[in-house]
C-alpha cells in the first residue's frame, strides 16, 4: 500500500480452519439422505395404511388365500438383522478413514445384499397370492415390490461405491459416502421389520 495512507481494516470471521470431511448431522448429503428416507418412509407408511384400510373393508383376511409362507421371509429377516453388525463396524471405521476396513465392509455389504436378493426371490415365490386376484394380493405385492426396489437400488449403490473404493478416487468424501451408504442400509433394514410383520404376521393374527 502507498506510504502514509492508513489501511482501513474490518472484522472478518476466518473459516479456513474448518473441516471439509464431516459426518452424520454435520454433512449435507447425510441430511439429504434423511430427507429421502422421510419421503420413502412416508410411502411405506401409506401403503401399510392402505393394507389395513383394505382389511377393514373385507370380511376374511386374507380373502381365500393362505398367508405367505413364513420360512423364506424369516430367513431374510434374520439376514437383515445380522447384517447390522458388519455395517456398523465399517460405518465406524469410515469415520477414521480406515481404508482396509471400509473395503472389507463394503465387500461384505455387497455379498449380504446379494444374499438378501436371492432369498427375496424365494420369498416372492411363496407369497401364496397373485396381484391380479384380489386387492389383498395387490397390496401385498406393492409393499413387497417397494421394498425390493429399495433393496435393489441400495445393492447397486453399494457395488458402485465398492468399485470406487478400489479405484484412485479415494478421498475424504468417499468415506462420507461409505458412512451414508451404511445409514441408508439401516433404513432398508428398519423398514423391513414392520413390513415383515405386516406381510407375514398380520394375516395370521387377523385371521377370523
Amino acid at each position, binding site marked *: *500500500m502507498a506510504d502514509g495512507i492508513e489501511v482501513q481494516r474490518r472484522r472478518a470471521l476466518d473459516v479456513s*480452519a474448518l473441516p471439509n470431511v464431516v459426518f452424520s448431522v454435520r454433512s449435507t448429503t447425510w441430511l439429504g439422505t434423511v430427507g429421502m428416507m422421510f*419421503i420413502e418412509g412416508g410411502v411405506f407408511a401409506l401403503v401399510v395404511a392402505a393394507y389395513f384400510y383394505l382389511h377393514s373393508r373385507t370380511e376374511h383376511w386374507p380373502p381365500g388365500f393362505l398367508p405367505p409362507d413364513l420360512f423364506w421371509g424369516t430367513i431374510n429377516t434374520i439376514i437383515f438383522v445380522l447384517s447390522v453388525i458388519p455395517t456398523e463396524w465399517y460405518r465406524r471405521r469410515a469415520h477414521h478413514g480406515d481404508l482396509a476396513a471400509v473395503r472389507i465392509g463394503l465387500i461384505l455389504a455387497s455379498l449380504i445384499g446379494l444374499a438378501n436378493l436371492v432369498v427375496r426371490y424365494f420369498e416372492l415365490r411363496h407369497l401364496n397370492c397373485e396381484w391380479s386376484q384380489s*386387492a389383498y394380493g395387490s397390496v401385498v405385492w*406393492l409393499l413387497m415390490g417397494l421394498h425390493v426396489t429399495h433393496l435393489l437400488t441400495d445393492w447397486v449403490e453399494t457395488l458402485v461405491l465398492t468399485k*470406487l473404493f478400489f479405484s484412485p478416487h479415494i478421498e*475424504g468424501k468417499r468415506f462420507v459416502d461409505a458412512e451414508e451408504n451404511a445409514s441408508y442400509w439401516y433404513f432398508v433394514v428398519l423398514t423391513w421389520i414392520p413390513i415383515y410383520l405386516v406381510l407375514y404376521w398380520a394375516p395370521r393374527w387377523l385371521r377370523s
Partner: protein
Amino acid sequence: MSEQRAVMRLEPVLPEKEQARAAQLAEVWKEPPGFIGWFKAIHHTTIGKRFILTAFAFFLAAGLLAGAMRLQLAFPESHLMSPDLYNQIFTMHGSTMMFLFAVPMMFEALSVYLVPLMLGTRQIAFPRLNAYSYYLYLFGGLMLFAFFFVNSGPDRGWFAYVPLSGPDYGPGKRADIWAQLITFTEVSALCVAVEVVVTTFKLRAPGMSLNRIPIFVWGQVVTAFMVIFAMPGVVVASTMLLLDRTCGTQFFNPAVGGDVLLFQHLFWWFGHPEVYIIFIPGTVIVSTVLSTFCRRHMFGYLAVILSLIATGFIAFGLWVHHMFATGIPQMSESFFTAASMMIAIPTGTQIFCWIATITTGKVVLKTPMWWVLGFFFVFIIGGMTGIYVASVPVDLQVHDTYFIVAHFHYVLIGGAVFPLFAAFAYWFPKMTGRMMSEKLGLWSFWLFTIGFNVTFFPMHIVGLRGMPRRVYTYPAGAGWTVLNQIESLGYLFLFAGVAMFLVNVWRSLKRGELAGPNPWQAGGLEWAVPSPPPAYNFLNLPTVNGSEPLWDAAPDQPIVTGLKEDVREVLTTRILDAEPEGRDEMPAPSIWPFLAAVATTALFIGSIFRPIAVSIGAIPLGITLIAWFWPTREESERRRKQDIWQTE
C-alpha cells in the same frame, strides 16, 4: 492448526484485491458457455429463472384453456366444442394450474431462486439434483400438452377419481397420462423440498439462528416439510391407479376386495396439504413485502412463524372435508369440520399481525403493496366461503356446484396469484437489474382485480342457483345465462390484466430504470448483492445480526473469509444457532442430470404403454445416475491433498 474453529480477525480492505477476487469467483462459478453448456447449467439463479419462466408459461397456457371454457359457457346450449373436448379442457386447466403452475411456481421456482440468496450462501444444496428436478418438471409438462394436442389429454378432472378413471370406465390412455404427469411433478417437487430443507438447515450465514431466519424462508421450509409428508399420498394413489390400469391389480375394484374411497383418502391426504403448499408461500410473500413497504420489522415475528408451523400440522388433519358427500360416518364429519374450523386460528393470527404491521408502519404504496392489499380483499372473501363449506349441511348442498368453483378460485388466486404478482413486482429488479413500470403495474393490478371479481363472484350465485360444475353447456331457461355472460366478460379483463403485465415485463427489460442492489431499501440479504446477482452471489459472505440483516447490521458487521475461492466452496453452519461448522465443495456443472432426466422421462412415458418399460428403462437411468455421481480423478486427487477431517 488443530482447533477447528472460525476465528475473528481484523483484515485490511484492499479494493484492487477485491476486484481480482471477484474476477476469480466469477470464473470459478460461471455457467458453461454455448449450446451444450445450457444443458449443463446448475446455478440456483439459472435454474430458478427457468423454473419461473416455465411455470409462468404453463400459467398462460392454462389461462387460455380457461378462456376456451368461458367462451363455451358464454352462451346456453352452445356447441362450439364437444363434451369430450370440454372434459379434456377443464381437466387440463385444473391439472396444469395445480401441478405445473401453482406448486412449481410458489414453492419450487421462488425458493430455488431466493432461498440461497436470503440465507447468504453461494449455491443451493444438491445443485445437480436441482437441475434434474427442473428438467423432469419441464418434460412432464411438455408430455401432458403433447398428448393433449393429439386428443389424448386427461379428461377425468384434476383429481381423476376412480372408478371413472379406472380400467372399466376410463378407456384409452388418458388417465394413465394424468397418473404419470403426477409422477413427474411429484418427483420434481420432492427433490426441491429436500434441497430447500438442507440449504436452510446447513447453509445459512453465520449468526442467522432459527429466530433470525427470514419469514419467507421459514414459510418455504414449512412448505418443503409439507411436500415431504404429503406428496407420498398422491404418489401412492396415482401409482395404484396406473397399476390397476396397466398391470391388472385390483386396488380399486370392489368386486374383489378393493375400495374406491381408498383413492380419495390417499389423494386428499396429499390434496388438502397441497392447498397450503400453495398458500403458505403466498402468505410469506405478503409478510416480506409488508415489512419492506411498511418500513418496519414484521409485527409478531414469532407468532407468524408459529402460525406457519401450526398451519403445516393442522393441514394434515383436514383431508376428509373434501369427502363429506361420500357417505363417511357422521363422527368423522364432525371431527373434520372442527379441524377445518381450527385452521382459522393460525390464519387469523397471521392476519392480525399483518394488520398490526400496517397500522404501526409507514406505508409506502407501490405496486407490490397494491397486490398485497388485493390479496387481503380477495383471500378474506375466499376464507369466509370456506367457513360455509366446512359445515357439512352447507357443503352437501353446494357440493359439485359453481359455488365450490368460486370458493377455491377465491382462495387459490387470492392466496397465491395475488401474492405472486406482488412477488414479481418486488423481486423483478433483483432478477433483472431493472425496475418495472409503476404505471403499467397499477393498470395490470386494477384490470386483474376487477376482472377476477367480475369472473368469479357471480359463480357463487350461479352455484347457489344450482349450476353444477364441469358441465359443457346448460339450458337457456335455467336462469344462469346472464351470470355466465358476466363471468365470461370478466375473463376479458383478467386477460387484459395479464397481457398488461407481460407488456410491462417486456418494456422494463429493455427500458426499465436501473435498479441498483436495493431499490426498495429492504432488509433481506438478497438485497445486499448486485442486481442481477453475479454467478457467485456474494463477494464477501455476510454474517447476520437480526431477522432483517441489512437493517439490523452492526456498523462493523463482520464478513466471512477463508473459504477457498478457486473451487466452488460454501460454508456450512450448525442447524440451530448457525455457528460456522464446516466447508463443503459444491459440484461442477454437468450434462448428466439432464441426461438422467431424459432417461427418467423415457421410463415414465414407456410405463404408460408397457409395464416392462420400468425394468428396461431402469438400465439407462442407472447408467446416467452412476455417471452423474462418478468423480473425476483430478478432483479426487486435489481434494485428498487438502482434506481436513473433522476431529471427534
